[in-house]
């Protein structure tokens, strides 16, 4: 059987320091060769199968160095999928793995659907019959989950923006179609080349802007900004250290880390976090006042998640209560720490002030409750309750690769318009752009164009 080349991150997110981007398909080796440079300076295609190579990835477009990697190459049919396979081992954590994935997608691979490697293994006769049912369930389960996450994202800014771009394209398309299908109707204004250029350029710029902000998107680059707040000595630094120890910290070269604030980058169950411990600042000052100040500052304003910590072995203080008020309205988890000590805190009161936010009890000292905390963070994220300002992490690689395709097709359209290609040719690329954008938000129904046509224009005998 013959399939296109697919790629995906194949190590579960957050597990271990090394992540693998796997490619499978006829072009796997070719794509790897386009981005891989080894000291041996010999292309991978000329290397024997089932060997591992050290080298660097670079972006052919910018010639920029991307990653230091180990690349394993395996020739069909003795592979998991019975196709040519390349595995790129990167040790850079979420940020760099994502970049590598995007790079191979840009170079021609397609993002694998959930379960697709397994599916190919099956279709190519690698797995036996008894496993087939399981594969189907897998595909269904994973797709549904991915779809849920996707749907949650859809309510966000991205889908809104894409919707606007598509509407603009659709209107232009409908008008061109009307000109074509009803040439004798004089009341429909002809879509002129300048109009096409204007609309196309606008769309292209918007996509460029989306891509620009997405590649700087803080989730992708920095993770969800997570701020730990609480009175001195409740255990903030301990929590941070514990999360960092348990989850290998992400090494980052992000600039602008302020001296006052301690930041660590961790990957908690697939969710990249930028942990900020505000207690790095002068402990003596009134903490609530400080929060007030900080709230207007970048750290808090840009926080995606607040971890508010209180001490179980002390009564809830006035200061604690004012802290709750200070962060009201933000996405938050409440942590009641030091449960190993005798309880003095009024837990009911804590639940009351926490309102709808989840309360988790921990003893950092005895390593209790940390698993629950991690799960709660992951749940918040994957259920979509946590809103990030830019493209979301889960499907961003897919989104970005689609956006790049859309940008290229609309660019083709604009360029064609500029050299005077007839409008109905240009339309092919405009339609394609509209479809690709639709894939991002899961909507490519052909009929919508025809509906648009007849609701907007008065046609017929």
């Amino acid at each position, binding site marked *: 059987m013959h399939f296109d080349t697919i790629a995906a991150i194949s190590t579960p997110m957050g597990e271990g320091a090394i992540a693998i981007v796997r490619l499978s398909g006829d072009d796997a080796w070719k794509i790897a060769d386009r981005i891989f440079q080894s000291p041996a300076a010999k292309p991978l295609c000329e290397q024997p199968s089932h060997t591992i190579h050290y080298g660097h990835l670079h972006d052919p477009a910018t010639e920029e160095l991307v990653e230091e990697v180990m690349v394993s190459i395996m020739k069909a049919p003795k592979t998991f999928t019975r196709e040519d396979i390349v595995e790129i081992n990167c040790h850079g954590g979420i940020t760099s793995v994502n970049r590598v994935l995007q790079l191979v997608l840009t170079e021609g691979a397609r993002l694998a659907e959930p379960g697709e490697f397994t599916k190919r293994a099956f279709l190519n006769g690698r797995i036996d019959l008894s496993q087939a049912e399981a594969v*189907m369930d897998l595909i269904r389960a994973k797709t549904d989950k991915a779809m849920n996450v996707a749907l949650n994202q859809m309510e966000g800014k991205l889908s809104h923006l894409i919707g606007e771009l598509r509407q603009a394209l659709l209107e232009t398309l409908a008008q061109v179609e009307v000109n074509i299908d009803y040439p004798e109707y004089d*009341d429909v204004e002809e879509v002129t080349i300048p109009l096409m250029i204007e609309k196309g350029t606008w769309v292209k710029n918007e996509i460029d802007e989306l891509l620009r902000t997405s590649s700087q998107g803080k989730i992708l680059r920095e993770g969800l900004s997570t701020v730990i707040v609480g009175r001195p000595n409740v255990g903030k630094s301990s929590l941070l250290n514990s999360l960092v120890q348990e989850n290998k910290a992400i090494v980052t070269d992000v600039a602008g880390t302020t001296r006052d604030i301690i930041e660590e980058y961790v990957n908690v169950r697939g969710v990249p976090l930028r942990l900020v411990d505000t207690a790095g600042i002068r402990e003596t000052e009134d903490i609530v006042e400080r929060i007030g100040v900080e709230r207007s500052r970048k750290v808090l304003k840009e926080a995606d998640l607040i971890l508010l910590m209180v001490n179980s072995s002390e009564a809830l203080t006035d200061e604690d209560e004012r802290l709750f008020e200070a962060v009201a309205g933000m996405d938050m988890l409440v942590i009641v720490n030091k449960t190993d000590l005798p309880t003095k805190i009024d837990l009911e009161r804590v639940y009351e002030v926490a309102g709808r936010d989840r309360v988790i009890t921990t003893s950092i000292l005895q390593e209790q409750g940390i698993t629950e905390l991690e799960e709660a963070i992951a749940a918040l994220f994957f259920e979509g309750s946590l809103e990030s300002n830019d493209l979301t992490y889960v499907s961003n690689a897919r989104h970005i690769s689609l956006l790049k395709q859309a940008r290229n097709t609309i660019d083709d359209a604009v360029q064609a318009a500029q050299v005077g290609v*007839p409008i*109905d*040719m240009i339309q092919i690329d405009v339609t394609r752009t509209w479809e690709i954008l639709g894939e991002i938000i899961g909507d490519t129904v052909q009929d919508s164009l*025809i509906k648009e046509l007849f609701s907007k224009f008065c046609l017929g*005998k």
Partner: protein
Amino acid sequence: MPQFEAGTFDCIVIGAGHAGAEAAYASAKMGASTLVLTMNLDMIAFMPCNPSLGGPAKGIVVREIDALGGVMAKVIDKTHIQMRLLNTGKGPAVRALRAQADKVLYQQEMKRILEEEPNMTLRQAVVEKLIVEDDEIKGVVTQIGAIFRAKTVIITTGTFLRGEVIIGDLKYSSGPNNQMPSIKLAEHLQELGLQTVRFKTGTPPRINSNTIDYSKTEIQPGDDVPRSFSYETTEFITDQLPCWLTYTTPETHEIINENLHLSPMYSGMIKGKGPSYCPSIEDKIVRFADKSRHQIFLEPEGRNTREVYVQGLSTSLPEHIQHRLIASVPGLEKAEMMRAGYAIEYDSIIATQLWPTLETKKIKNLYTAGQINGTSGYEEAAAQGLMAGINAACNVLGKEEVVLGRSDAYIGVLIDDLVTKGTSEPYRLLTSRAEYRLLLRHDNADMRLTEIGYQNGMISEERHTKFLAKKAQIDAEIDHLRKVTVKPTEEIQEIIAAVNGTALREPMKAADLLKRPEMKYSELCKVVPPLEEINEEVAEQVEIFIKYEGYIEKSMQQVARMKKMENKRIPENIDYDAISGIAKEAKANLKEVQPLSIAQASRISGVNPADISILLVYIEQGKIAKVSG
């Protein structure tokens, strides 16, 4: 009524409208003994609406019919009163011919062609029942009890099934244009278990040309260049009649608004779903209230009649209001109405009950084609008739069935849409329904389909030989332009300057020069003369192929991707209930449509990519099971 045996045939076609005529012609031409049973032999290929054929998408369908060996193109080439090539200012993918027909001559010519066909029997009769045994068609029974037996039957009864004409608050049982409705047959089809829906369409009034003041209208002449739909036509009509353009006025709109309550559309009398692309004037004025005027085209219905079709004024308002509407239009102040406009409601078959060959899933060897399948329009009807006729004959002759793909022809798009998605309103072809329209052009219909027509005996040896020669000429000329280098001579620089191009600095391949948007092949020919003398048709295809190569390439890649999925067949006896994991709605729709390929499955509404993945896995599983078992 006593019944009697009246004869046996390979194929019976019920109805001789646009679908029936084409179906009968194809089946007879292919060698199947064919009987046409139709209500009224004087009404063969009657046009109950616009006296016009073609236009965007539809015009290309007519070309496709011709390339496959059908008759519509040849008939209109002989009987039109005017012909125009549309969209000439746009790219090649959307050019299309439109002709105004002489309605009566068209019918006569079609009748003559059918009569001349050796394997054809024409008989005036009303069919009331089908003979079905073990879910297989065996023949038909007419009103007077005649039994005709046949291996295959094609029903093409158009808008006749339980037809009801509506004008104002008047509603009566009738076929189009006051012909008899088909009530018994409609009931019988339902008894046989075929599901139907109620659709509606309408037509404008006709007026007497002698009473029109043409000075208040704009003339719309035909093209000066002689044109034809058929690739075989050699004689052209030069004596053309013009159409005329006028507009509605604020008064027209006022009359409609004041009398809306009398419109059966708004009083709730009409329940059938009408086509959104053919709104009545009532509809237009209600839905597009801000438009101050609408175009009205005056189209002569023929050379030997004074009747004029008032395009744009389709209505089912009461007749006395129609008089006032007409009088409110400039040029028509004194116009005499000859026939009132009306709406018609009718049963049509839900097309997802058909295989892509147009054979019904329920009753073997029974086919349906034309407006009965939920479409609207002569060309759509003829296209289906042709395909049903070819497939019925293939069936009889034991040949492989013919199903056109979405990348082969607009006809393929039409039938695939119908049998895969069904339609919630009368279906009309539009260029926007075709995803590969750059490949489905007016000019290359012959390249796409002649071979298929030839293989099925629809195209003569002589025409086929000519076709092959044309094809070879095109290929040779494309090759030539790719090889020849144009040097920056004074002559070429002049030609380039004349079209405002940038001067040549270095020698360039002729093909690359032609790719420049401003460069015309006719100009280029001055410096790169063709290998041998070529006609305009050849020149057109050469120019399009080279100029738009990049776009054509892109479309071909798209097609290749789709073809892969198209080649993944779904076993006929697949049990969707046994497949765990396919979503409920998807399952229901898959069971209804019974797609033949993965590609078709993916076009069914409610079937998403995950369902397709699971289906693929399941099918492969079956394959493996077969191999190992």
